């Protein structure tokens, strides 16, 4: 799938990837690939501007941890992030139902 198409939904996808468990950037990319059956293939670095944006908006929080001798930034959803995800999920369902109705 084209990266440009995904970009508009990236924030919601990242929130969804963090819904059940905290993760670092690489793990988030892996989750998105796995859950989309490898359809979501975007430049992996683009997840970081999205994570920083979500953190500035208070939707995720992050902290440094250590992994294999490296510093690793691990992100988790905040309460506001959970609420934002629920709203975006609802918006997406409404939107996709409407598109489906038109295209079908």
């Amino acid at each position, binding site marked *: 799938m084209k990266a440009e198409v995904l970009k508009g939904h990236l924030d919601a996808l990242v929130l969804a990837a963090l819904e059940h468990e905290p993760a*670092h*950037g*690489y793990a988030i*990319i892996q989750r998105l690939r796995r859950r989309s059956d490898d359809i979501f*293939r975007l*430049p*992996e*670095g*683009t997840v*970081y*501007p999205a994570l*920083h*944006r979500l953190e*500035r908006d208070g939707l995720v929080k992050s902290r440094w941890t250590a*992994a*294999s001798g*490296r*510093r*690793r*930034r691990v992100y988790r959803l905040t309460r506001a992030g959970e609420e934002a995800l629920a709203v975006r999920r609802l918006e997406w369902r409404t939107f996709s139902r409407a598109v489906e109705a038109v295209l079908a």
Partner: protein
Amino acid sequence: MSRYLDDLRRELAEVGIGGRLRDRILAEAADHLAEGDVRSFGDPAELAREFADDLATVRSRRATLRSLAALAAAAAVFAPAFLLAATAGRTGDIFSAEWPPLGVLAVLGLVACPQLSFAAGLLALLRLARRRRERRLAAQDVALLLRRTRIALAFGGGTLASAALYALEYRAELDPWYVLAIPAAAAAAGACLAAAGIATRRAAGVKSSVPGEAGDVFDDLPIALPRRPWLLFALAAATAAAPALVAGGVTNEGPRNAAAELVFVAAGFLALGKRLGLRR
């Protein structure tokens, strides 16, 4: 991997991202690339632009809000300096200063600087409010917002300097409390303006690449007016001159003060109109 990180470091510096944020981005990229593939991480220039486009918007908004707060502090110094001068003993003779040219400069500064600062600050606030829902501001929008903010800060600084100079130059006829309190308060508010100026400069250092036109003041107004800058000038001039006419008295100093206001507004419009986005 190290070559990619060097490229990313250079590209981040190119768009004005440095310090702790750049270190964090590079550390996250290094951790990612230790597990992933450099080729699928994306173009470093594109990634740096993505960060910069977000950051330019966030920092310019914050810097403008901080500047408006600092300008409010400056106004809190200017208002008593202006209103309490007569109570504190000033007679009104402009040439009674310790060194008259400096005294005249202080008076002119007290008249012109706050008006220009208020106008530029109001325009920055209008632009901020008008674009408040946009996730990313166009590069031209950021530039206009910060230009308005910088001009407001500069004239805010001029206002404080004029207030302090006024107190010092006319100290012979002013009460001691005024001579001590106004320069001290001006220095404190000046520190707030300087801090806001640093934040504004920092925000301007981040280069956004988001396309789009900044437009002009007509795009900021909540009501649709005909796009005629000179009509706007006439409205602003009338708004500034009318109170001067009334306050000075129609048969007394009013007409002279109103004429001076018209000259100030015209000079401001000609000198700063394009920079403030009043005309294209």
